[in-house]
């Protein structure tokens, strides 16, 4: 997603931005400010230009975030995503007419966050306020213990935590035999997704695999049900006296 936004903004090397590296992060922020956002005058960007001097840069960045009115985001990745989105928005507002012909017939996609909130709320039956700081902190702690990646919406993160617990840690999962057989690289199958766009190809393949996994689960349940019924009804018979070979 970040890559797509960088591409949209015309970043020279959108695929090569190392997100974990603070210095690269700093230079990307500077690039966006220089080229697109231009919140400060050129002279005011001096502190942000000190990429090689982290202490000064961090100070400048902190005030830059505040001046941009960035909401409190925790990870570097989220912050960059926000800044890039902001830049895209500004680009768009420069000349909205240019994009007038582009529209989405389905209307805006439903926000994942809202759905997750509804689901979680229904589980807790309104007895727990899921927006309370204590609750949020607990979810964050749980997530970090289980190595679940950070997400700005803690309820989505909670869902991911639930999935990890269900798949890996539940008693049923612990008793499961490990999968045997030769693993096969999943990007080498007969199915074509979108070979010229790896940004689309990989997530599509992963989503499809997840879908296949849940279908397999369903089919296994169906088979188990059939076998249970067979235990009551089945009584296969043969009678060789009936048989007759033709001419």
């Amino acid at each position: 997603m970040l890559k797509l936004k960088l591409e949209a903004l015309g970043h020279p090397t959108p695929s090569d931005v190392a997100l974990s590296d603070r210095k690269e992060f700093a230079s990307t922020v500077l690039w966006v400010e220089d080229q697109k956002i231009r919140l400060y005058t050129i002279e005011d960007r001096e502190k942000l230009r000190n990429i090689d001097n982290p202490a000064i840069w961090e100070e400048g960045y902190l005030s830059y975030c505040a001046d941009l009115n960035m909401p409190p985001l925790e990870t570097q990745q989220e912050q960059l995503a926000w800044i890039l989105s902001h830049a895209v928005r500004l680009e768009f507002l420069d000349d909205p007419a240019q994009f007038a012909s582009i529209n989405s017939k389905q209307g805006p996609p439903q926000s994942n966050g809202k759905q997750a909130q509804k689901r979680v709320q229904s589980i807790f039956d309104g007895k727990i306020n899921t927006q309370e700081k204590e609750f949020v902190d607990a979810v964050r702690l749980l997530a970090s213990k289980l190595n679940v990646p950070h997400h700005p919406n803690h309820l989505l993160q909670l869902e991911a935590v639930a999935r990890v617990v269900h798949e890996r840690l539940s008693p049923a999962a612990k008793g499961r035999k490990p999968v045997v057989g030769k693993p096969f690289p999943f990007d080498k199958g007969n199915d074509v997704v979108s070979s010229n766009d790896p940004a689309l190809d990989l997530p599509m393949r992963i989503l499809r695999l997840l879908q296949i996994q849940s279908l397999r689960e369903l089919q296994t349940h169906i088979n188990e049900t059939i076998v249970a019924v067979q235990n009551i009804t089945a009584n296969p018979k043969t009678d060789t006296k009936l048989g007759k070979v033709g001419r």
Partner: protein
Amino acid sequence: MVVRPYNDELQYLQKVSDHCWRIKKGFQPNMNVEGCFYVNSRLERLMLEELKNSCRPGAVGGFLPGVKQIANVAALPGIVGRSIGLPDIHSGYGFAIGNMAAFDMDDPLSIVSPGGVGFDINCGVRLLRTNLYEKDVQPVKEQLAQSLFDHIPVGVGSKGIIPMNARDLEEALEMGMDWSLREGYVWAEDKEHCEEYGRMLNADPAKVSMRAKKRGLPQLGTLGAGNHYAEIQVVDEIYDKWSASKMGIEEKGQVVVMIHSGSRGFGHQVATDALVQMEKAMKRDKIETNDRQLACARINSVEGQDYLKAMAAAANFAWVNRSSMTFLTRQAFAKMFNTTPDDLDMHVIYDVSHNIAKVENHMVDGKERKLLVHRKGSTRAFPPHHPLIPVDYQLTGQPVLVGGTMGTCSYVLTGTEQGMQETFGSTCHGAGRALSRAKSRRNLDYKEVLDKLDQLGIAIRVASPKLVMEEAPESYKDVTDVVDTCHAAGISKKCIKMRPIAVIKG
């Protein structure tokens, strides 16, 4: 029929690529859409020779050449896309065998034709795998062939060894493989690996004549005659290792069992009954066709609906039939190797139908349309991720089982996206006849045919040896040519090749 000199006929045919020919409108009268056929250079020669022979003055009688039949089908009301001939195409009743055609369900004039399904309704191929290897089976193959022959009655007029009464038959016609499951003849996983999950839901036994039921009842669990067979085969070549492993085929030499059979006399009677009804309907609704054999009725007419319901019952009959033979095969193997079918891992890899009409959704001119797809001597070949194929094959594409001729080889292919776009997800079904039955009987000697199989080290048990030359490899096109054409044209992809070590036949 228009009779023109051969060279004039050729004006209507155009080679569009190495493996595909186009049949232009006007080749036969009233063509609604164009036709096409898939061939390689050798099959192309056969195809054009057949046309040439029919152009000779005084050539009368017998079926029309395959190309003409494709074009006649293209003239049927409601057809969409193209009338498509697969590489194994050869003349048949009305439709050529190896011709597929799709009709728009939303067009009130669209028709369904029993000739587009064939007389052996839901004739198909089932493949069972085992965890045995050639070395385990070679020493006992004669006994094993005999054991299969004892378990699965074959030949014209054979009777099955699974006791059934009239009520059982009614239930089986309605339930298809679910009946076999309920009675415990097959495994739950078998249903999963079968087209339509082994049951057509619109089957209505009440639409089937008494005569058909009487013919069908004793024949359930029998192989039949003609080109039907059960073969013990070994994996000879693996082209797509990964897809093969998804099917449980790990290495060369692994033993599999192929069963090729259909709905026996039951389906034949259903088709015959329907043809009589449809001739009346054609007169009433004023449906014109180029060939009397293309009897048909509007899909929404009483006759059309009755036929589809009876055809579905016959399809269910065929699935119960193949399921019963699966049961008997497992028994035979288990006895031979003193173990259980479970321990032999005798799972159904897949079960395909190559004589059937089904309602499917396809993209036509960029829009999704509901179509009645006739496949006669043509196998469905859906691509990866199609919702109608089993979850285990979502990544590989649907397995397509192509039975060769006696003593040659058979193939497993997989469906492709290109096939979905070009041929409504259809591909070849087998070798396809090159000589008529009568011609084979005249030209070949049955003893020679049997000796040849013996030399190849293939054990054979046959109910009527004097008819064996009808099924000799010489009577058929080369299945490898057929499969290679499908692979090269991209309408399906080669996965596994098998060769037989034991055959039982009618």
